[in-house]
């Protein structure tokens, strides 16, 4: 399904993007690269503040055009460079090829508009010939929402139902790519599983590609074929989910795994990654992870790590310490305590 030769649906190369906020310039992307093949499920993992959401929004042109600037790099969607797109061009693309669902389904729904109206809006003009009401029926069935939800307002639905409404809206245009930005973070665990199952099922059925953004490596590795790990605005490791799961090469990825598994250290504390994500308003020399990295060496302070391939299956990493690619998951990973 995902042959590397297939023409990618999305190709982001070495993207540098910054936005201004209260006079500070935040460099949210500092060399992010990512490709998604048609129909492929790709995960994007990283801590809060690593620039995942900004990257996802850049893919749909949803960052505020007044304050956001693409400094260098390119984003190709379906073979077209969208980095110079105006709002009008974006509108066409968003209403057809690209869709997005968001983290907090309540705040992302209009509180004073009924569900059916909000879904109808998302149906492109070209698909309205067959009857709008029937199309809404189909979409509700697709996301397994009862017909009774049609006339509801967002606050009358449960969190899981709201996320299904967002999903129905996103699917209304039959998109080629669905970007899901932490779609289950605001939900409780059982609802989380339901939504993830639904996402997987819909993707299979509709043959669309998906970019799943999450801080939860476990969740992403279950749902996605390939995974990108992002740190401080750059992609630091990517490859097939199985390979990353088995042999994480970047110390940051390993740290994420240990935190996700709630690994207990000999002293009884949970494994965490010490320190914080660097402030993206500042310039960073060398590797951005070196301040928190257990394997940091002098080279890391001065030189940005080169990208290198590990093995045959398209597993890449940006780390000096992973050069020998011989690091086993548990070794050399004396995780600091925060």
């Amino acid at each position, binding site marked *: 399904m995902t042959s590397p030769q297939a023409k990618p649906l999305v190709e982001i190369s070495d993207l540098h993007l910054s936005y201004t906020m209260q006079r500070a310039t935040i460099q949210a992307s500092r060399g992010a690269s990512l490709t998604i093949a048609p129909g492929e499920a790709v995960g994007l993992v990283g801590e809060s503040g690593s620039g995942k959401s900004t990257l996802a929004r850049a893919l*749909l042109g*949803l960052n505020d055009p007044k304050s956001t600037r693409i400094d260098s790099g390119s984003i190709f969607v379906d073979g077209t460079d969208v980095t110079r797109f105006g*709002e009008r061009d*974006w*509108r*066409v*693309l*968003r*209403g*057809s090829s690209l*869709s*997005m669902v*968001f983290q*907090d389904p309540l*705040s*992302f*729904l*209009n*509180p*004073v*508009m009924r569900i059916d109206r909000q879904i109808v*809006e*998302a149906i*492109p003009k070209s698909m309205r010939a067959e009857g709008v009401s029937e199309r809404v029926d189909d979409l509700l069935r697709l996301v397994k929402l009862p017909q009774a939800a049609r006339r509801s*307002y967002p*606050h*009358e639905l449960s969190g899981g139902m709201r996320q299904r409404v*967002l999903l129905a*809206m*996103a699917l*209304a*245009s039959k998109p080629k790519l669905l970007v899901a930005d932490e779609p289950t973070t605001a939900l409780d665990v059982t609802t989380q599983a339901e939504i993830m199952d639904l996402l997987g099922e819909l993707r299979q059925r509709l043959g669309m590609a998906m970019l799943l953004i999450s801080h939860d490596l476990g969740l992403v590795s279950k749902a996605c074929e390939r995974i990108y790990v992002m740190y401080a605005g750059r992609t630091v490791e990517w490859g097939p989910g199985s390979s990353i799961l088995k042999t994480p090469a970047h110390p940051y990825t390993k740290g994420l795994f240990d935190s996700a598994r709630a690994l207990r250290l000999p002293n009884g504390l949970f494994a965490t990654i010490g320190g914080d994500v660097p402030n993206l308003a500042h310039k960073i020399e060398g590797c951005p992870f070196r301040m928190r990295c257990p394997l940091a060496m002098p080279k890391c302070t001065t030189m940005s790590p080169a990208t290198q391939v590990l093995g045959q299956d398209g597993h890449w990493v940006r780390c000096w310490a992973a050069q020998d690619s011989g690091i086993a998951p548990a070794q050399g990973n004396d995780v600091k305590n925060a």
Partner: protein
Amino acid sequence: MWQYFLKRVFWSIVTIFVIIIVNFVLIKLVPGDPVHAMIGDFPAPQDYIDQLRRDFGLDQPLHVQLWLYLGNLAQGNFGFSFANRQPVLDLILGRTVNTLILILPAIVFSAIIGIALSLAAASRGGGFDITVSAITLFGYSIPVFWLGQVLVLIFAIVLGVLPTSGMYSLRAPQSGFGAFLDLLRHMVLPLACIMAFKIAVFSRTARASILGVLNSDFVMTARAKGLSRGYTLWRHVLPNAVIPVIAVFGYQFGHALTSSLLVETVFAWPGVGQLFVTAVGQRDFPVLQGILLLSTILVVVANVLADLLYTIVDPRIRRSLGARHA
């Protein structure tokens, strides 16, 4: 939900009752004797003064006067105007209608224009937004009586296109469409005076509210759906942005009644504001009390209506009321 409104109405009545008492006491505290004001400087015999006091119940202790006043109110008797020698209610009702003719259109049009302006400013941004902000700041700070006189000077005296004051011309038709046109011509300047401030208030409130809504997450959803900016403003931003503006509605009604004191004085508009100013000069206490009571009722009713409007516009409020009182 109906239970909520019954409750709301009950508390409104309590509010009105309390204000009646406060007004009564306040007016009694005002220095100056109504009997003296009525007789004037003319030297009257003490017997005559005492008889007048008895006739109007002014010789009774305060609480008895209050009790009498409340009893009369309950029977729809608002008292008798010393100065106008006419029942207060008849006097006030006619004048109140004249004031409402001015105030209601002023508030409704100001709200529509103010919201439209700030919506246009939000969608255009840049220079247009700054211009609108500057104009509203002007309307916000300019004194109404000064604006009124300048308008009269320009439009009535220099250009001569509009009447200087009053509500009707003597030579205009007494009824039908001609009379209506005549009324409109008289309304233009006082309306402009009240609206200059009201438009500013509504557009400033709406602007703040629109800017807040524009940053909401669901506006990003609308963008992600590929909707146009104009449609998003109209269907998503506006319905959410008017909710806080409605809260201003009830309050602005009370404020408009107050500003009618000035506007009606400047334009000799025969409304309740002008009557109030005259009554103060004449120490015509029953009229003052009557006007205060009527304004109180109007303001309270306006606020209840604003609350009702709230529940129509915002389904979340409707639901929380339904849940609590179902």
